């Protein structure tokens, strides 16, 4: 597979790992946060930690839009399917996410609700056309990568004058999340979370470009290197980050030059701003309320907004008190530091957001890395 296999070459991986070993200053400890769940996945899937010297530490950030979705939003989707009898369409990632009382889309499907897994939001248009007598709701989630497809779908639904389709919008913004982490007391005041730089998300950046990260590099004096999706990209980004730290620089660099430009995808960005606007605030599981971090559908397209079409009862869902997700999502604690990890909280029975999706720090660690603890 071109543009995939070359970036997974084992021999080159060892060579780059050697570069890292030669670059690191033995007296320093380097802490880098990867923000993108796909990067977390790649790191564990290829066993990258085994290749790194001991003084390079990878901290896992809240880069998974599934994990950070608050429990109330899952409850709302469940309510739409169960009480309002809609055909609820969702990506595979959402099917097992637990809402209150451990309900999930897969569970309510088993109990008779019409929940359909889709690969593309385009499929939802067809489902709406094939079921003109039913209300069809698309459970939209994702960062800036996944938002433009939803925008197109809303535009098409509008052009086709579909009367039975609406979107439950939960799209969120990456820079806001990075900002929240960097603003957290552990970093700003207490200095207890050591963070020397960021591995910037791959595909989000193809849309937003490298420019939005300039603010963070300058304001917080932390280097950001945008890395491609493959393991060699991640390793090369580490080389670039280590060099920046050694040289005392805090710049935005782009390793993923084959797909990311400074401006990103202007056509996609324009489309998104045509359909969506910023919510004043949006609640992130584990991070609390983050201002200007979520999107909602603009007035012009409100007739396609599920939150306007349906009256959804406010949820009373609460997180488990012992859950350390807020700390883990911000990189302050590790999965093993949570009392629930691997015992009451497992991928089969996830209690908190970090265990919910395969991209979450706890889930990734549980699935790929826990045998090192045994």
């Amino acid at each position, binding site marked *: *597979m*071109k*543009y*995939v296999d*070359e*970036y997974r070459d084992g021999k*080159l991986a060892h*060579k*780059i790992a050697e*570069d890292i070993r*030669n*670059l690191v200053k033995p007296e320093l400890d380097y802490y880098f946060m990867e923000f*993108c*769940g*796909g990067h977390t996945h790649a790191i564990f899937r290829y066993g990258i930690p085994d290749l790194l010297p001991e003084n390079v530490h990878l901290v896992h950030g809240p*880069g*998974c*839009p599934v994990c950070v979705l608050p429990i109330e939003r899952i409850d709302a989707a469940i309510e739409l399917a169960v009480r309002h009898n809609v055909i609820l369409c969702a*990506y595979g990632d959402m099917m097992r996410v637990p809402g209150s009382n451990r309900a999930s889309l897969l569970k309510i499907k088993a109990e008779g609700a019409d929940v359909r897994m889709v*690969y*593309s*939001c*385009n*499929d939802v248009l067809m489902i709406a056309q094939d079921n003109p007598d039913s209300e069809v709701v698309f459970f939209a989630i*994702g*960062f800036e*990568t*996944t938002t*433009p*497809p939803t925008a*197109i779908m809303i535009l098409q639904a509008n052009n086709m004058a579909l009367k039975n389709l609406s979107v439950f919008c939960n799209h969120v913004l990456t820079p806001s999340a990075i900002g929240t982490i960097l603003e957290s007391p552990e970093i700003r005041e207490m200095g207890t979370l050591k963070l020397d730089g960021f591995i910037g*998300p*791959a*595909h*989000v950046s*193809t*849309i937003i470009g490298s420019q939005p990260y300039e603010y963070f590099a300058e304001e917080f004096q932390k280097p950001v290197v945008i890395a*491609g*999706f493959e393991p*060699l*990209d991640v390793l*090369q980004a580490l*080389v670039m980050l280590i060099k920046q730290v050694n040289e005392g620089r805090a710049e935005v660099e782009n*390793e993923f*030059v*084959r*797909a*990311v430009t400074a401006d990103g*995808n202007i*056509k*996609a960005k324009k*489309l998104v701003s045509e359909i969506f606007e910023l919510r004043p605030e949006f609640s992130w599981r584990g991070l609390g309320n983050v201002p200007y971090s979520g999107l909602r559908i603009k007035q012009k397209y409100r007739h396609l907004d599920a939150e306007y079409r349906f009256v959804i009862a406010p949820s009373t869902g609460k997180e488990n008190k012992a859950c350390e997700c807020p700390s883990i999502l911000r990189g302050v604690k590790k999965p093993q530091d949570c009392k629930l990890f691997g015992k009451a909280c497992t991928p089969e029975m996830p209690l908190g957001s970090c265990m919910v999706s395969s*991209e979450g720090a706890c889930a990734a660690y549980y699935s790929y890395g826990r045998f090192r603890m045994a």
Partner: protein
Amino acid sequence: MCLAIPVRVETLLGDDQAIVELGETRKQISLALVDNVAEGDYVILHVGYALNKIDPDEAERTLKWFQQMENADQEINRALETGSHEIR
């Protein structure tokens, strides 16, 4: 986040649709988010939509980057300091 994969545009179908190919698998996807795509181009595919084109020159440059000796300067300096003739 954002599972996306580079795929080759095999056939343009009009109406912003195309058939793309990845290692013997083919799929119909939307090109609505990208302009000026030609058959033979590579795009990044996510949830049935192309997000961006892959720049083949930059892709080559990246691979060459990987292969460069990263620390040639440091190694030479270290050898000079210690008097060692060994350069790894």
